[in-house]
């Protein structure tokens, strides 16, 4: 009986320890951050080709989170009216909706994708689905091919 009691207590303590990490105010996601220098998001968006394939660390307010799976966030640029998508592998990192409005320090590799109009419509449709706005999605708003710039995310610190 004592063994059972001890096992139950040990399991409960382990579960509480694991869940305690959920409640921390600063939370790390994925791989540890390694870069010492931050790159302004505006610089990446101004000249994406110069950063393509390069590992960068960016900082900014999280202005959007994937509603469906938490598999991407949009980080506001240091310049107004700009933000960049930080896409992580599904299931490996999951950003909570509560991250909206918090500041992210995020690291990953800049990726540029040239999309045809059809591909851009499909991507926008998928994004609308993840945002929960598929009902108001209007494909006619997407004109011509699109160059999509995003960061393939590896790790982030949200505070």
């Amino acid at each position, binding site marked *: 009986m004592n063994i059972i009691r001890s096992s139950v207590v040990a399991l409960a303590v*382990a579960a509480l320890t*694991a869940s305690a*990490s959920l409640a921390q105010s600063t939370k790390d996601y994925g791989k540890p951050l390694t870069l010492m220098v931050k790159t302004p998001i505006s610089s990446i968006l101004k000249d994406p080709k110069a950063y393509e394939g390069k590992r960068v660390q960016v900082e900014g*307010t999280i*202005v959007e989170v994937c509603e469906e799976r938490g598999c991407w966030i949009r980080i506001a640029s240091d310049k107004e009216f700009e933000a960049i998508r930080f896409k992580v592998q599904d299931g490996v990192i999951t950003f909570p909706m509560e991250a909206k409005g918090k500041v992210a320090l995020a690291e990953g590799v800049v990726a540029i994708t040239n999309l045809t109009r059809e591909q851009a419509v499909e991507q926008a449709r998928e994004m609308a689905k993840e945002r929960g706005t598929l009902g108001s999605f209007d494909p006619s708003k997407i004109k011509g091919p699109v160059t999509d710039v995003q960061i393939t995310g590896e790790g982030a610190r949200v505070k």
Partner: protein
Amino acid sequence: MPGQTTGVRIPWRRWSIVLHRDVGYLAVAMTLAYAISGIAVNHIADWNPNYRISKSFVAVAPITATTTPEMIAAAVERLGLSAAPKGTFRPDPQTLQLFYKERVYHVDLPTGKVMIESTVPRRVLYEMNQLHLNHPKNAWTYIADLYALSLILLAVTGLFVLKGKQGITRRGGWLTAAGTLVPVGYWLLYVQ
């Protein structure tokens, strides 16, 4: 004596029953959490299993301020908000977003129309989904592994709890075979 075995006879069936019973008790809470969360996330295409997201609309006087800090101050005041937002963003020249806990205010500056987007975690279900999908990582990974091992143990010991016509050699065997056919048959017929 000829034909007689020597040594200690291990009471396998008794051990199966004892393990099945006690591990079963230990696994009840985890099984319920994983099963309920399993149903919830299985239908993720149709609903958000983690959050209750709603949108409501209010109108305030148009905001004509010229700088972002002035716009934020005006919006906070007109919306009657008691605290400063934890973050702000302007996605385009006519929109201002104010981020609060579980709420985002999307203010259309020229018209004063405001969309309030509320995102509230589904209590208990949110926590169960977090654990089920191993979002905490760290120690929870090993606790979940332990739980998975206990399910294997429950499945195996469950086969040997009963003997006779209800046991694995007769009715239990047929039911086990039928249960095995479900995933195997589905895979062969619909997935491959």
